[in-house]
């Protein structure tokens, strides 16, 4: 049951991720990316962490695609030009290298998953990881102010 769900999710994740990096239409690429992230939220549910799944759904599968679509329309990038031939060679080489370095052994280890409830995650976030939590909020504030300053139209 769980294995079927994993394989179904993983297959669609890979298909839409490949679409997101290869399709020429920018809007289609952004929507494929949104579907990829939505399906990864499903994988987080399989991993027993509903909190992470909810955050993935709200941030990566909703907010970021909207921002991406806005910027695609503001810069009028309808399509992405096809890659040069040396770029394809370099991309395939890097992908192969990544697979060599990051390959996992399928079937290795037991299938014991320890679910983490949102409550546990939240309490631990505000106790053991309090300093990184606050640094993250400062980082978000800096990014917001920085984006506003950078994107502001210059006077004159």
């Amino acid at each position, binding site marked *: 049951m*769980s*294995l079927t769900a*994993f394989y179904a999710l993983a297959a669609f*994740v*890979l298909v839409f*991720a490949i679409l*997101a*990096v290869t399709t020429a239409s*920018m809007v289609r690429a*952004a929507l494929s*990316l949104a579907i*990829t992230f939505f399906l*990864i939220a499903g*994988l987080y549910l399989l991993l027993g962490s509903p*909190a*992470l799944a909810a955050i993935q759904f709200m941030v*990566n599968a909703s*907010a*970021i695609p909207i*921002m991406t679509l806005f*910027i695609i329309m*503001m810069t*009028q*990038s309808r399509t*992405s030009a*096809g*890659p*040069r031939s040396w770029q*394809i060679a*370099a*991309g*395939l080489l*890097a*992908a192969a290298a*990544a697979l060599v*370095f*990051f*390959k*996992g*052994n*399928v*079937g*290795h*280890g*037991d299938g014991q*998953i*320890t679910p*983490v409830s949102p409550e546990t*995650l939240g309490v*631990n976030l505000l106790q053991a990881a309090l300093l*990184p939590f606050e640094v*993250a909020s400062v*980082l*978000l504030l*800096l990014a*917001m102010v*920085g*984006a506003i300053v*950078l*994107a502001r139209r210059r006077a004159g």
Partner: protein
Amino acid sequence: MVTLGHFLLLSGLLMAIGLYGVLTRRNLIAVLMSVEILLNAAALAFASVAAFRDPSLFAGQVFALFIIVVAAAELSIGFAILLNVYRTHGAVTDDAIGEMRG
């Protein structure tokens, strides 16, 4: 039975796809989207190792959470820079910023 290896293999494949996208895309927005795939692959690896190997700790989940935060910050700044590139060069392709003139 789903094991840690399944999730790590999927994460590795996503990493490969993202790397391919970063190297082959000509539109800079598409490059940033590929970077997003890379970051999500890393977050998935952290979360799966936490779920399978770490019965008491939560560090992997917190790492995945912070990766999402950093990705959002990186993307907003990146898009603001690309907006400026569009205003000065008229396009957000790698050709447009090929020469570093003011």
